[in-house]
């Protein structure tokens, strides 16, 4: 059995020129890690915020588990909202590759889907562009009602009230949708609320009684990290922290609410300029990022790429997970290496 490989990672770390600071003053990496571990041990309401590919996120997740901290994914609000949508109702989906290979009709649901279509499918193979239909929130009845209307028209016996002239466009649209051989409805969680999502899935379910229809949600590039949280914790952040701490958070459970209520924030990223730390109130910050020195922090460790560590990111353009080499100063350690070293130190200090 392969022992936990942290010791190998630490050995490499020692050979890098890690730049570390305590309250702005240069210190050795060893001093910075000791101070960081001390802060983690003392924190009452720690939070870990991470960005980047799976290697960094995994390391940050382990640290959050050790510290019993809330875990936040930078830029993951949409992913988490989408996960909640699936949890609420389930539904139909497909992959971008399958949509490119098979779709003969694409229904864009919402203005954002319509505007994103050409960007998402810029690599559409020649001669295979599908017919594009639209339904948007500018509809007279509103998006939710329009989708519900379409679902009713798609059923075997549509209500007589929908046979009025004002519904002619909707009836035409449904006939076209029913003619699909393999239809795909494109939608974005940024635009659809839960009721609109439910109405869309109801429509697609009706269409599947006669033909094949599915949906393609936009993914942002933290989708993989959200799924990894599910795999490691069974639920997605920040729900776990709220459940286990049972703290009433003013204004809800957004990432910013969590950070405002934390006394220690560990910020981890393999990329610069991606972590939002605007109004962090009274929290102390441990920054493990390429731009650590620029963040107001008690402990700052600048990261780069050590040549041994890659991140696995979700490539939205290619609709797959892919290796994303960590670019930057190869003399500095990667974010995941530093976090793993901090984890070892923190475990030892307990």
């Amino acid at each position, binding site marked *: *059995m*392969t*022992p*936990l*490989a942290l010791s*190998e990672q630490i050995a490499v770390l020692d050979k890098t020129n890690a730049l570390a600071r305590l309250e702005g003053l240069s210190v050795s990496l060893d001093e910075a890690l000791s101070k960081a571990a001390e802060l983690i041990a003392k924190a009452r309401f720690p939070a870990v915020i991470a960005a980047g590919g*799976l*290697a960094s996120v*995994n*390391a940050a997740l382990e640290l959050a588990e050790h510290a019993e901290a809330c875990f936040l994914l930078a830029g993951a609000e949409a992913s988490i909202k989408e*996960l909640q949508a*699936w*949890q*609420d*109702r*389930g*539904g*139909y*989906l*497909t*992959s971008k*590759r*399958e949509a*490119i*290979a*098979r779709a003969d009709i694409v229904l864009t649901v919402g203005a954002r889907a319509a505007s994103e279509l050409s960007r998402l499918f810029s*690599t*559409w*193979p020649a001669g295979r562009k599908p017919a594009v239909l639209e339904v948007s929130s500018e509809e007279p009845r509103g998006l939710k009602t329009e989708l519900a209307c379409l679902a009713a028209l798609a059923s075997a016996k549509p209500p007589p009230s929908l046979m009025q002239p004002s519904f002619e466009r909707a009836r035409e649209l449904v006939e076209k949708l029913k003619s699909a*051989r*393999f239809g795909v409805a494109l939608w974005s969680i940024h635009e659809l609320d839960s009721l609109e999502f439910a109405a869309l899935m109801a429509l697609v379910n009706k269409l*599947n009684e006669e*033909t*094949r229809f*599915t949906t393609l949600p936009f993914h942002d590039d933290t989708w*993989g990290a959200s*799924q*990894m949280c*599910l*795999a*490691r*914790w*069974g*639920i*997605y952040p920040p*729900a776990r922290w709220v*459940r286990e701490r049972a703290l009433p958070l003013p204004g809800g459970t957004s990432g910013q609410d969590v950070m405002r209520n934390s006394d220690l924030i560990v910020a981890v990223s393999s990329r610069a300029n991606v972590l939002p730390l605007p109004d962090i109130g009274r929290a102390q910050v441990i920054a493990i990022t390429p731009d650590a020195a620029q963040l107001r922090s008690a402990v700052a460790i600048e990261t780069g790429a050590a040549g*041994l560590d*890659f991140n*696995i990111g979700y*490539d939205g353009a*290619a*609709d*797959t*997970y*892919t*290796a994303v080499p960590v670019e930057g100063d190869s003399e500095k350690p990667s974010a*995941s290496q530093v976090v793993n070293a901090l984890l070892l130190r923190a475990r030892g200090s307990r």
Partner: protein
Amino acid sequence: MTIHLRAGRIIDPEHGRDEIGDLYLAGGRVVAAPPPDLPIRETYDLSGRVVMAGAIDIHSHIAGENVAAARALLAERRWNGSDPLATGALPTLGETGILYARMGFTTVVEPAMPPHGAIQTQSELSLIPFIDRAALAVLGNDDFALRLIRAGETGAALTDYVARTVNAAKAIGVKVINPGGVAAFKENVRSFNLDDEVPEYGVTSRQIINALQGAVARAGIPHPVHLHCNNLGLPGNVETALRTIEAAEGKRLHLTHLQFYSYGLSKRGHLTSGAARLAEAVNANKHITVDVGQVMFGPTVTISADVPRQFAARKTASPRKWIISDKEGNGLGIVPYDYKETNKVSALQWAIGLELFLLIGDPWRVLFTTDHPNGAHFTTYPKIIHLLMDAGERARWIEKLPKAAFRTTQLPDIAREYTLTEIATMTRAAPARLYGLRDRGHLGVGAIADIAVYTPDPDISKMFSSAHLVFKDGTLIIKDGEPQNLGYGRTQHVSPAFDSQIDRTLASYYEERFGARLDLFNVPAHLLSNAQVFEEQPCSVS
């Protein structure tokens, strides 16, 4: 340093052993005697205890996008009480490793890895602690394979494609799920049998199975095609399973979760047990291996890449929500379900699984699964072992289940009780042979030191629920049910040879069909968070 396991009852079917004896572990292996330079560091007195090789689960859905979708769909099960697993919640990666290790399992195979999603599956597998892992790559509804079969290129071209896919995904074998049926469903075909043709391709399920059997054998992949047949779960589908056995034409074939294909149909259209007929066919056809897919009672979730089957099943979802996804090749379908003790259909399914175990005579060819989580959670294994070893326990269960469920089964009259050797065969030696894992599943000299020690108990469930000791590569990982020495195993895979010309062919195919680069789907080891995550197993010499 050497570890000495003294005076345990060693049960090693591969070497015909059931006797009191000693084992020595050094360098992560079983050795004949303590090496002179590695004196005994520790001796465990195993008097009165049972010693087996670490168990191997050949088919359990534990990682990848299918499992991730199920976690997302049913995340609320994690909120319920102190034991979310009792509500049917899927275990996390950490829980998976600990729970398996606690029962004495040291290798688990994820049976449905989509080749395009291999990097997610392998990422998650690499994070499961304690155990070794492996995964089967899913083929048989993918456009490229169907085109080759349509064109009659079922020789070298298909072999190279299969070998290349297994290599790129770091798989240990090939899984085929409702071959042709899923592709046909994308063309709105809602019923698909063994000799039906897939629209646009004109190939049948039978042709796909035979073509892939040949390709897998020529590639030297030790594990035969791992087949999920057409018509899963449908009343009367025992006929499909019987015809599929015939369709194998004497070549090796593994039929998975056979319980779900053991349904007869009465003249009145009621579900009956077809287990006896199917067991007879398996007994008579030595080239066929099966795993059962035992159902146990309680809430669970069905996870399957048999999209048409899951689409049909969505109306029975409990709770009433599901996910149906069409992807390249096979997709995924997630439908939660609750097998209730009061429901005669669930009770009949439970009985049919046990009938298969008890009527198939050769424990080397009937393997132990619940198709986790489809039939039941893998933590029910100790209870199933108890049912197999104790006819009285079966009778106690039957007593509390609906009587109507047993009108068409032989289960109440079957007296057979599995021995410990048969259990060890079914859960250790046979799985290792089936996957070509020569280094495990036995306790011979040279085997990896994956060892489980149990304390006999009249309550057999208790005996197998929590091992006294479990060693992984000679390191103690479980002591009296508690995890020790956190570490991570390795993902087992094979690397069959192929002509690299297939890379050029596939690269232009991927560009044309998907607008994607072929290399996006490779899984090099250095991408994953643990060093030395992969371990190659040998292919067969053809």
